[in-house]
């Protein structure tokens, strides 16, 4: 186990720069999730960490050692690939023991190491099978087993759950998290799925277009997103954004589209009349008599909660209610955002305005 430091790392393919100076400190034993939409550079960064892509500028160090020019096999890392990359012509045991075999370990050492990893992942009955004979979840576990056997300093996961069906994905998510709690190996995990990021991470790094938008614990990102991108990316259903301007007329409020009045706890200094974006999470709406009038468009009950799509000042918003209401499309309701939990973003830069 060791810490990882990514300092001002840039990556260009030809003249095209995909990472524009990324710095991420990763503590020893931490579970860090790199999350972002496709093409944000998260997988490239992971591959640079693994040594599969070279580093255009900046440094990556694992432990105390700068690894920019260190061969992948000498970096002491293990990676789980999106398609698992299991060797199809080797049994599960051979797959898991391959790295030890290449290191020149004795057969007894290999089989001890493989057995230990197989026990951790409940793979013992499958050791003689070939990858083709395994289910998706089992293959996923073998891929992790292959990583565990090496007892590396750092685990790297590249979208490991995206080839699994929804139910298995949830189960494996828990399994990976539990594995990390047991082994406490520093882990860098790449995903485009913010739910995976929220549920698994000690620290989330939200990336977008080759830069880090925000870093922090899952709840920090959820509660105080640094900008409109992070606000929209973290949380499901996504945060509602309404354009308008801040008004300080005695009490502060936000004038949304078509003059809808929305509550603000306080206005940022010198913001009267300033155009801004008002952000409210679907779960932070309540039905209240002093709320803004909205017309219900679609109601989607999920059992535990109900998602309501409504027109608020002509803009579509989504609200989520835990309690059951009898809504019908076309109904008029009064939606009130919780003023303590709303977010204000700069209209042009997208930066967070309220604290």
């Amino acid at each position: 186990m060791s810490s990882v430091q990514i300092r001002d790392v840039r990556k260009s393919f030809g003249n095209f720069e995909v990472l524009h100076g990324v710095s991420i400190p990763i503590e020893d034993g931490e579970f860090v999730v790199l999350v972002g939409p496709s093409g944000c550079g998260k997988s490239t960064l992971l591959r640079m960490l693994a040594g599969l892509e070279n580093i255009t500028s900046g440094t990556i160090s694992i432990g105390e050692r700068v690894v920019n020019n260190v061969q992948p096999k000498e970096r002491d890392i293990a990676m789980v690939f999106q398609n698992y990359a299991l060797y199809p012509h080797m049994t599960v045991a051979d797959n898991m023991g391959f790295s030890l075999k290449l290191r020149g370990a004795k057969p007894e050492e290999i089989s001890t190491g493989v057995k230990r990893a197989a026990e951790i992942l409940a793979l013992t009955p499958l050791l003689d099978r070939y990858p083709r004979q395994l289910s998706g979840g089992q293959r996923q576990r073998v891929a992790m087993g292959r990583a565990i056997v090496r007892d590396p300093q750092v685990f790297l996961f590249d979208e490991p759950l995206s080839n699994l069906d929804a139910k298995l994905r949830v189960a494996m998510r828990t399994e990976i998290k539990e594995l990390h709690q047991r082994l406490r190996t520093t882990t860098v995990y790449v995903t485009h799925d913010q739910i995976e990021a929220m549920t698994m991470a000690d620290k989330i790094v939200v990336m977008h277009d080759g830069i880090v938008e925000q870093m922090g614990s899952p709840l920090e990102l959820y509660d105080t997103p640094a900008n409109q991108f992070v606000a929209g990316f973290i949380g499901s259903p996504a945060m509602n954004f309404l354009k308008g301007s801040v008004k300080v007329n005695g009490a502060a409020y936000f004038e949304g589209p078509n003059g809808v009045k929305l509550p603000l706890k306080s206005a940022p200094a010198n913001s009267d009349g300033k155009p801004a974006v008002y952000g409210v999470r679907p779960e932070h709406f309540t039905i209240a008599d002093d709320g803004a009038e909205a017309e219900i468009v679609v109601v989607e009950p999920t059992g535990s909660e109900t998602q309501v799509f409504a027109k608020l000042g002509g803009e579509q918003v989504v609200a989520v209610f835990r309690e059951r209401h009898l809504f019908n499309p076309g109904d008029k309701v009064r939606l009130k955002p919780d003023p303590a939990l709303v977010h204000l973003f700069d209209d042009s830069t997208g930066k967070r305005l309220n604290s």
Partner: protein
Amino acid sequence: MSTVQTSMPARAAATGEPSAWSRLQGNRNWAAFWFMLPTAAFLILFLAYPLGLGVWMSFTDERIGRAGAFIGLENYQWLWDDSIFWLSVFNTLLYTLIASAIKFAIGLYLALLLNRHMPFKAIIRSIVLIPFIVPTVLSAIAFWWIYDSQFSIISWSLIKLGIIHSNINFLGDTEWARASVIFANVWRGVPFVAITLLAGLQTVSPSLYEAATLDGATNWQRFRFITYPLLTPIIAVVMTFSVLFTFTDFQLIWALTRGGPVNATHLMATLSYQRGIISGRLGEGAAIATAMIPFLLAAIAISWFGMQRRKWQQGSSND
């Protein structure tokens, strides 16, 4: 069966039981049969029938212009004591073994090279195929000039370079002739091996190499433990074909040496042609040709059982 009947309700309703003919028209298994029939007829007429006729002919003393009588194994007994026949068997095995081994080695090497990223990849890959596309006789004639005892460009170049002092008698000397025809065959056969193996290489997921790199594999180990085992099924197929083509090679030898000098390059195919067609002893020629069959079956059997062993390819796939 019920679906078959409902698909033709009109007739079935009219006659009660559908007639045998209408059942034949509708049944899926019969449909498969009808679709295969033209191909099967073609293969039977132009492959199976001549093959059967050839085997039958090998048991007769038929000559050109004279119908033969059944003489049992006499042709084979005759061949058994014929040293030239045994020389041709030896030549064929030598030719096949050496040429196939070299084709495999060069073909694999070329495939590995062509599988890398490089500029003008598509063009280079197409160029590699040229020797395979040129008609055999044309390339044979080109080689004939290259190997000519007086005008050989190889001899000429080596003399100009001062390495040798007189022309090499490529096709006139026993050892040189064997080496020369093997070289020409290799030149023709490499593209097939290379392009097929290249296709095989491209089915190997790049992430396997990345995983192996992270596991600590060197270049050689990646080839030894990943590429080679994953390529074996394709190697088995391509080498079976390569061995079959080489073993039955005729055109190249006939155009270059006609089996000479002193039968040193006579293969079973060329000997069969010489005895059967040129000398007119069809029965004997057919016997030589028939004698190739066991060798070919053995080659197929080896690759068949070689391929059967690979358990990792079997089993269900969930992806």
